[in-house]
């Protein structure tokens, strides 16, 4: 059993707050990803769990025990570093077995465990090599192997894929997921890449400016962001967000983006939004995939909008269409067959079942 619990965790560097009070419960065997822009405190949080940084305030519990003052070596954790931190003077086998040798395990057992983990990671033939002789992906595997072989209570990953090229990153992402499915261990994973976060996590924790913005399953975060920051951060291309006004006429609500563009609010949301009618500082959010080319059988609450595309980006399976509304650049994902051309006025379909209304001042999604 190895839950990890953070209680009002605080970290200041010389009066500068890096982490401003984090509460998080990580269940046994859960894969949690901390994601956020650089400087949001995610790596600091991970290093505090590892014991590499002192805690300014709050508590960290691993497996139910407070470990605030326990040194890293006694926390029974394993960490994979951004630049792998393999010992350059040791072979792969020595690197992986270092922790076990320090624990003075019998040689036979060490050899057996290293061989088993090397098998899982497919690095069996590399055991006699030095890190210098390995490719980036192989080093990454060795770094993971060094963590797995110790069979710790918790795995900590600090942006482990950011040094790999794009193709290898996608591949290793899948590998990490496979490994976690085989070796079910509580995992805390830090990344600034929201795609990595979405694909790997059982639960994504979005951090910003030293606080948790929202924690939840990847799809929940994507479809029901709690804050403006999460709405803008999760998803690529990012959610279209622009200022709007909420107008009430004869019991029905309309969001008005500018003089020309306005949409009726779906009837089932009227009750929820009515209180905000006429309020200033509202934002309208709609993901690019909910702005598409015109389709013959439109569903309820889908309504056409006429725009002049400024740029189109063919991606193969879809074409991204960029246009301006109310001075904000918006993006739509259209079927390449629609053949949208820049500068040619065209009709797109907005699916308002997926719209978001955000209060700009508080950053809350309404």
């Amino acid at each position, binding site marked *: 059993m190895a839950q990890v619990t953070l209680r009002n965790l605080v970290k200041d560097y010389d009066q500068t707050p890096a982490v401003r009070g984090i509460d998080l419960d990580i269940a046994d065997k859960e894969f949690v990803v901390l994601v956020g822009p650089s400087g949001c405190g995610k790596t600091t949080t991970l290093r505090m769990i590892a014991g590499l940084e002192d805690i300014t305030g709050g508590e960290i519990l691993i497996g139910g025990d407070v470990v605030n003052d326990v040194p*890293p070596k006694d926390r029974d954790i394993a960490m994979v570093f951004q630049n792998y931190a393999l010992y350059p003077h040791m072979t792969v086998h020595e690197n992986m077995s270092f922790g076990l040798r320090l624990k003075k395990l019998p040689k036979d057992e060490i050899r057996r465990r290293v061989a088993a983990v090397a098998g899982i990671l497919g690095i069996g033939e590399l055991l006699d090599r030095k890190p210098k002789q390995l490719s980036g992906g192989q080093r990454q595997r060795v770094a993971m192997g060094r963590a797995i072989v110790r069979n710790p209570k918790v795995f900590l990953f600090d942006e482990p894929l950011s040094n790999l090229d794009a193709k290898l990153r996608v591949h290793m992402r899948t590998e990490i997921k496979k490994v976690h499915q085989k070796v079910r261990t509580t995992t805390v994973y830090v990344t600034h890449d929201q795609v990595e976060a979405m694909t790997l996590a059982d639960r994504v924790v979005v951090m910003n400016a030293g606080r948790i913005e929202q924690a939840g399953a990847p799809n929940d975060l994507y479809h029901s962001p709690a804050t403006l920051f999460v709405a803008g951060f999760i998803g690529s291309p990012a959610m279209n967000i622009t200022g709007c006004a909420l107008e009430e006429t004869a019991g029905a609500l309309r969001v008005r983006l500018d003089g020309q563009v306005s949409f009726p609010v779906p009837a089932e949301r009227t009750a929820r939004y009515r209180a905000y009618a006429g309020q200033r500082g509202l934002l309208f959010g709609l993901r690019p995939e909910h702005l598409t080319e015109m389709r013959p059988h439109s569903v309820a609450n889908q309504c056409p909008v006429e725009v002049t595309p400024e740029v189109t980006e063919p991606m193969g399976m879809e074409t991204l269409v960029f246009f301006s509304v109310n001075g904000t650049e918006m993006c739509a994902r259209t079927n390449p067959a629609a053949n949208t051309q820049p500068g040619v006025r065209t009709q797109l379909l907005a699916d308002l079942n997926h719209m978001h209304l955000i209060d700009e001042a508080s950053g809350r999604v309404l």
Partner: protein
Amino acid sequence: MANGVVQAAGLSVPRRRRSGRRLARHKSTIAFLMALPLIALIAALVIYPALYSLHLATLNKSMERFVGLGNFAFLFKRELFWMVIKQTVIFALSAVIFKALIGFVVAHFVHNIPAKGQRKWRGMLLVPWVIPPAMSTLAWFWLFDPSYSAFNWVLTRVGLDAVPWLGEPLWARFSVILVNVWYGAPFFLIMYLAALKSVPEQLYEAAAIDGANWWQKIWYITLPMMRNIIAITVLFSLIVTFANFDIVRILTNGGPIDQTHVFATWAFQLGIEGGDLPLGACVSLFMFPILGVAAYFILRDINRRGTEA
């Protein structure tokens, strides 16, 4: 037209190559000419004296007659020669070991001082190394003075006996080594400090997580990562210490009763002061094979590690 392009290209390639080869020849000639003054300087100041001392060592005292290996045979029969070898080895080995140890320990302390104050400490600790050794050794000479020195004054004040620092063979050897360590340790300090800074912090963090205590971190991470630097500094210092002249010359001049002579001071005494240049040259030549063997073993290890990586 396409043909013409191909033809032109086909013509121009070998032409460029030919002129390139001429240029390379030209370049190396220029490079040689530019390096010539330095080569001449090295030849005049290193190669010529080395060959000349080989020649000198085969002459008799008045430098008129060729005696072959006669000087060497003479030296081998003298007890003092063997004593000087023993003393030089003791002097060089113990001084280098202590310099390396002290340099290593102090480098760790300085490394752990926050960056702000570190420059100050680094500068202060380097002072012994930048003072001309002849001057600083004179200062030590006064400190070691048997009747009026600071050391003995302190010792007698706390109720201990005065120590004949330079008057008794054992103490004299100790003093000479002490001054050499004082003078040479900062060199190790600065080299080790640079090496320590080049060890990535994350390796220590990884080791801490793997369960290493501070001693295990030094043993399994720091030392292996610094091995090459340690080997090179030790070799370099061994050469310099082996050939030390100024400290021994000023502090004891080989005394008492020749018990602190090292190769350089004894060669100086025999050759310059004693007027037997061939014998002096002969003594100084002995440093070469001994250091050669040490260099071979130390550098072999570095090469092996260099190629395996």
